[in-house]
């Protein structure tokens, strides 16, 4: 089954049901399929092209364009609306895409990029065309191309096939219990594996998807929970933590009907998990571990009987994970390797990156370990290790510990050059609202909870920590 088959199944089963709600607009599955077909027909002019770039804010039009490009037998190259001119230039060159489809706002933005000579089409213009010639649907093996966010290295092109999507979507449904009766709130950007996975799941089960432009307006998220009688919510951990600044009674009221909050594997503060366990009376908070290259490789449901608040859970069905270390012991920290039908076969035009895939195993660059019951714990990325006088330190351990201090909203640890130790640890901290915490209090906490070579040698209070749309720290920007 491919994504278009997912959609067709809903048209047959409940064509009049609302598929997507976007602000004041609604579209049924029947209407959505009609628009997707129309979009496919109208981009016939681009038929010579194998790949088409798509960039837009969250909207029904975006989803029509996404499915329309796929339905026309092409690969969608998904681009973040926040992309810089240089990054866009590099992605277009690497992807060999000759056309960009976007909304009007993005067309205005990209038209001002002097280095971009690619032809630009507006989504709405394409939809308004009249092409009576019906193009036969011939879906490509590959569905989309995304360049990974490059938090520690140059972006790499990742192509995801329909069979990977089908495998992953079925695992999501099986593990998290999605059904056609769900109403899913999605305030995540759709140019990323997390947001896309949510669209695919809604299409697969035939639930109703409520789109928000982004997660910056917390009041809008809370009001939407009530207005649309939302049953599932997908957000990054930072959004969940920020919501906790509202009064507890208010949060409980808004979340009373939620059966699932799904978040991604960017480290969730333990105290946030514990608080949501208390808030969700009828549901659970869940997370997963995955990469664009190996989506949803584990699942973790934080139920009240499981105290592993810092785990990303157990392997997904038919996905294998190995920990590679000198001891050949999965219970000890080592490099994480993943194998399964959710794993890419190769990167897009990148022989160097392909060296990370061998015999079906993907070397993720992440490190972690399993406990005896098979729960995976992430310990950071192998290229983020800080070497303090020969002692190896994972930033995540310090960050998790410091984030548990009352008065700390967020923290990031990284290595700085030191004349004696080679490297020592610097910690950048964002204080919670109205917090008067000082550096000494943070150090006192660290010395009580961490080994002495893990104590930061420098602490700065900062207003912002540079992160991707999905909450991953852009470590190369830290100073």
């Amino acid at each position, binding site marked *: 089954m491919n994504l278009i088959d997912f959609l067709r199944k809903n048209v047959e089963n409940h064509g009049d049901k609302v598929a997507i709600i976007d602000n004041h607009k609604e579209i049924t599955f029947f209407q959505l399929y009609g628009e997707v077909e129309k979009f496919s027909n109208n981009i016939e002019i681009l038929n010579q092209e194998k790949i088409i770039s798509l960039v837009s804010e969250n909207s029904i039009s975006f989803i029509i364009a996404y499915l329309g490009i796929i339905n026309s037998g092409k690969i969608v190259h998904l681009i973040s609306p926040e992309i810089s001119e240089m990054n866009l230039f590099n992605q277009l060159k690497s992807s060999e895409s000759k056309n960009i489809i976007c909304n009007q706002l993005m067309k205005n933005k990209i038209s001002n990029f002097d280095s971009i000579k690619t032809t630009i089409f507006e989504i709405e213009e394409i939809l308004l065309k009249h092409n009576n010639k019906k193009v036969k649907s011939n879906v490509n093996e590959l569905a989309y191309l995304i360049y990974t966010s490059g938090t520690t290295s140059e972006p790499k092109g990742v192509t995801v096939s329909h069979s990977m999507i089908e495998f992953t979507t079925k695992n999501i449904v099986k593990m998290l219990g999605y059904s056609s009766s769900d109403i899913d709130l999605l305030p995540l950007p759709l140019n990323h594996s997390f947001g896309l996975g949510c669209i695919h799941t809604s299409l697969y089960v035939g639930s109703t998807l409520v789109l928000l432009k982004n997660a910056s307006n917390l009041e809008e998220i809370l009001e939407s929970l009530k207005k649309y009688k939302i049953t599932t919510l997908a957000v990054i951990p930072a959004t969940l933590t920020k919501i906790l600044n509202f009064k507890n009674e208010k949060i409980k009221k808004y979340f009373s009907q939620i059966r699932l909050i799904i978040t991604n594997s960017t480290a969730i503060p333990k105290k946030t998990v514990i608080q949501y366990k208390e808030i969700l009376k009828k549901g659970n908070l869940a997370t997963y571990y995955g990469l664009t290259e190996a989506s949803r490789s584990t699942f973790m449901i934080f139920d009240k009987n499981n105290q592993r608040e810092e785990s990303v859970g157990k392997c997904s069905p038919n996905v294998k994970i190995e920990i590679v270390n000198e001891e050949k012991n999965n219970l000890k920290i080592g490099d994480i390797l993943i194998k399964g039908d959710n794993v890419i076969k190769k990167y897009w035009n990148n022989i160097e990156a392909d060296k990370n895939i061998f015999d079906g195993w993907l070397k993720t660059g992440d490190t972690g370990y399993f406990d005896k019951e098979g729960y995976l714990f992430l310990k950071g990325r192998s290229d983020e290790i800080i070497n303090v006088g020969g002692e190896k330190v994972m930033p995540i351990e310090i960050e998790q510990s410091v984030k548990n201090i009352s008065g700390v909203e967020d923290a990031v640890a990284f290595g700085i050059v030191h004349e004696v130790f080679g490297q020592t640890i610097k910690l950048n901290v964002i204080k919670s609202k109205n917090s008067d915490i000082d550096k*000494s209090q943070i150090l006192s906490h660290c010395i009580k909870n961490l080994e002495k070579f893990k104590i930061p040698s420098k602490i700065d209070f900062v207003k912002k920590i540079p992160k991707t749309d999905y909450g991953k720290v852009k470590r190369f920007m830290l100073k």
Partner: protein
Amino acid sequence: MNNEHESKEIIKNIFFEVFPNLDKNDFSWEKEQKDYENWDSFAQLNLITFAEAKFDISLTLEESIEIKSANDLLKIVKQYLV
């Protein structure tokens, strides 16, 4: 600005934080690094980090290396607080 009495209290507390096994009765301003069980290079770094945070100062590498006792740390801190 801290007076000498306050500074001394702060430094004593730093030593008790960095060396949690240090008994209150065993603290001495003259007691030297070699007489501490756990005063290694990492503990030295922690002492300096705490002092910098508590007094809002920044020690040079030379000053950091000179510290071999609580008294040494007090002397250096006092120079910054004049």
